């Protein structure tokens, strides 16, 4: 007899802010209060509002408790569950009304969201196949096996307009059609779960919150193209995701939803996991295939495309996690339902990982066509500390920075490409006036230089030369001609690199050059960093008028670069100064300037 469910978020965000401990604490407190039999504690996937983690939701009231600490557990148990009184101080403020709880869907964060890929995240216990089944899990697989021919499945996905969510945006149905058209024989379905963009955690959250939907989608894909085996290529750095996938596979096999003769249909399908060692290039589909085969993760030239000659030389489809998460829902609700969401050329929804200078850091899923302004200002809650918005970075190291003037464009594949960025896998990093755009471009280039596999010269050598120029610029040693060389290199590498990694690596530089040329010019011509980030271009000075000689800065300086007598103005020795900013933070009179 269970009358109440406590859902504790077990996503990575809340996990790292201590939700694991909450789970066990709830169990012990409930037992102590004699409620162990009537209240069930469930560990779910990500709710999305990671900034307010750990998140705990209590049903049937639907009370959304945020930032729950270990010390709050007892209060929730004795007040809410024993006495039936809400713990108002812990409720998410937007859900508190006079005497009742408002639905989460009415809050700014959730109102404009539409959860399709994430529909079970934060709803079910990902380690229990029965909960997935309760929410119509595996019904889509049952539907295709009993009612649809493989070509009907391909047609349904084609008609839905679903495009690859890993970044490329290639129509998923077309990919399936190519593979299905290959002569019958050994074929494979691969799930690309090698999410590597800095700041992106959409796929991770789906795997952690709803692993069975990926298995179901892979089986559907297998049926559609005539494959009986699938591989999930997932980063070893995602331990929770890997653990839950393993549990899910074992449960699906035990229940007979993976393996031989599924649901008595004669269709066989099984899935194995391959762990990636964290090389960014292995997210590129052909490098991923090499890695699964046990070879070095180098990209292969295309054509032949994997749909013709993929894993072990056999026809293979490779779909991203989020793409697959949409599949069962399309099958159950129909292609028209899916195609009704989004814009003309980009259907459905997209999950974004919101990060950087934004109030509601977390995971959001919005219909395509939502504007960047809605995402950042309404759903994301705007920029903290009243700072001014400067740019939003989408698409990670392959994407670009979008300035304020383009905030009102509707988000879809083609619009983002048109303004010099890409949809990418869904990382969205917001930057404010304190971010230096040259420094941002350098950051992403450092990443791609590190992750370049070295197989082709434009990428191996070219982007390293680009990074060197950026280092010169941020050190104040560049000449105006360097900017031309940099831009020329960008276009050359885009055209000549072997795989997606190299072809898109110049994007962060190109887009910042396009929209923030003035910042590059300030670095190059005036030897100045307008945002005050590039250390080598900064100097710290103490205003003798304002300095009271309190000695606080001198005592806080790690290199003893500040000298002066008590109650007399101090001075900074620029030769010793390492520009750490500790003096500014310590000064109570705002007497120290950074220029």
């Amino acid at each position: 007899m269970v009358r109440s469910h406590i859902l504790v978020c077990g996503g990575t965000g809340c996990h790292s802010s201590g939700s694991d401990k909450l789970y066990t604490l709830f169990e012990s407190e409930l037992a102590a209060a004699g409620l162990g039999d009537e209240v069930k504690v469930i560990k779910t996937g990500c709710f999305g509002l990671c900034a307010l983690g750990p998140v705990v939701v209590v049903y049937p009231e639907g009370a959304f408790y945020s930032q729950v600490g270990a010390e709050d557990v007892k209060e929730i148990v004795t007040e809410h569950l024993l006495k039936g009184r809400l713990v108002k101080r812990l409720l998410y403020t937007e859900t508190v009304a006079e005497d009742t709880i408002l639905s989460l869907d009415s809050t700014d964060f959730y109102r404009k969201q539409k959860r399709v890929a994430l529909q079970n995240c934060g709803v079910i216990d990902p380690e229990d196949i029965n909960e997935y089944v309760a929410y119509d899990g595996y019904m889509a697989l049952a539907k295709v096996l009993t009612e649809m021919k493989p070509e009907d499945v391909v047609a349904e996905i084609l008609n839905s307009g679903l495009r690859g969510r890993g970044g490329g945006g290639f129509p998923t149905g077309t990919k399936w059609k190519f593979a299905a058209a290959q002569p019958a024989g050994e074929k494979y379905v691969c799930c690309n779960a090698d999410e590597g963009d800095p700041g992106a955690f959409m796929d991770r959250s789906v795997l952690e919150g709803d692993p069975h939907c990926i298995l179901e989608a892979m089986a559907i894909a297998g049926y559609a193209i005539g494959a009986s085996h699938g591989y999930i290529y997932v980063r070893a750095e995602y331990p929770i995701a890997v653990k839950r996938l393993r549990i899910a596979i074992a449960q699906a096999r035990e229940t007979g939803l993976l393996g031989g003769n599924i649901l008595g249909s004669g269709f066989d399908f099984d899935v194995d996991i391959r762990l990636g060692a964290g090389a960014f290039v292995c997210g590129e589909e052909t490098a991923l295939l090499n890695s699964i085969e046990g070879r070095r993760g180098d990209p292969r030239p295309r054509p032949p495309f994997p749909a013709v000659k993929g894993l072990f030389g056999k026809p293979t489809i490779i779909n991203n996690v989020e793409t697959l998460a949409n599949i069962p829902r399309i099958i159950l609700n129909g292609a028209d339902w899916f195609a009704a969401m989004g814009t003309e050329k980009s259907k459905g929804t997209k999950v974004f990982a919101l990060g950087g200078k934004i109030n509601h850091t977390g995971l959001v899923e919005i219909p395509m066509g939502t504007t960047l302004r809605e995402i950042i200002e309404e759903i994301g809650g705007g920029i903290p500390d009243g700072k001014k918005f400067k740019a939003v970075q989408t698409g990670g190291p392959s994407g670009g920075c979008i300035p304020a003037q383009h905030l009102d464009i509707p988000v879809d594949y083609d619009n983002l490409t048109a303004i010099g960025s890409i949809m990418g896998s869904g990382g969205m990093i917001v930057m404010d006036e304190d971010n230096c755009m040259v420094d941002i471009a350098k950051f992403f280039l450092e990443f791609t230089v590190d992750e370049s596999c070295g197989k082709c010269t434009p990428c191996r050598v070219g982007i390293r030369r680009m990074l060197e120029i950026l280092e010169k610029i941020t050190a104040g040693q560049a000449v105006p001609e360097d900017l031309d060389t940099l831009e020329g290199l960008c276009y050359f590498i885009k055209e000549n690199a072997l795989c997606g990694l190299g072809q898109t690596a110049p994007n962060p530089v190109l887009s910042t050059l396009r929209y923030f040329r003035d910042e590059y010019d300030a670095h190059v011509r005036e030897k100045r960093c307008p945002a005050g980030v590039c250390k080598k271009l900064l100097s710290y000075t103490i205003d003798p008028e304002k300095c009271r000689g309190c000695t606080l800065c001198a005592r806080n300086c790690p290199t003893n670069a500040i000298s002066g007598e008590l109650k007399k103005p101090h001075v900074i020795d620029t030769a010793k100064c390492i520009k750490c900013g500790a003096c500014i933070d310590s000064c109570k009179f705002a007497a120290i300037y950074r220029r």
Partner: protein
Amino acid sequence: MKSLAELQALRDEMKTKIGVRKDGGHRMRVVVGMATCGIAAGARPVFAAFIKEIETRKLTDVVVAQTGCIGICQFEPVVEIYGEGGEKTTYVYVTPEKVPRIVAQHVVNGTPVVEYTIGANAK
């Protein structure tokens, strides 16, 4: 599991176990006063009886919740049933024995058990 029918049966069985997690959309809400006065008068077994009855009858669109003191402590245990339109029926002196009848007559068939309500008892 070897057939679609088995999968459907499992789904239907599991659906009844997650009914409480529905955000809104409940046809009826049974609210049991569980403040000190209610608990002292025996609200807990009443609460348990409602849960059990609702579960056995697989009434997934009905939610049983607890609340604090309703303010009429002399009538405890007090149970309030809210219909879809927000109309409210207040039952007083509820015992576990009265629960099956309230569920059968009111929750399932929509006719309040007048003799258990506050109107019939507050004279």
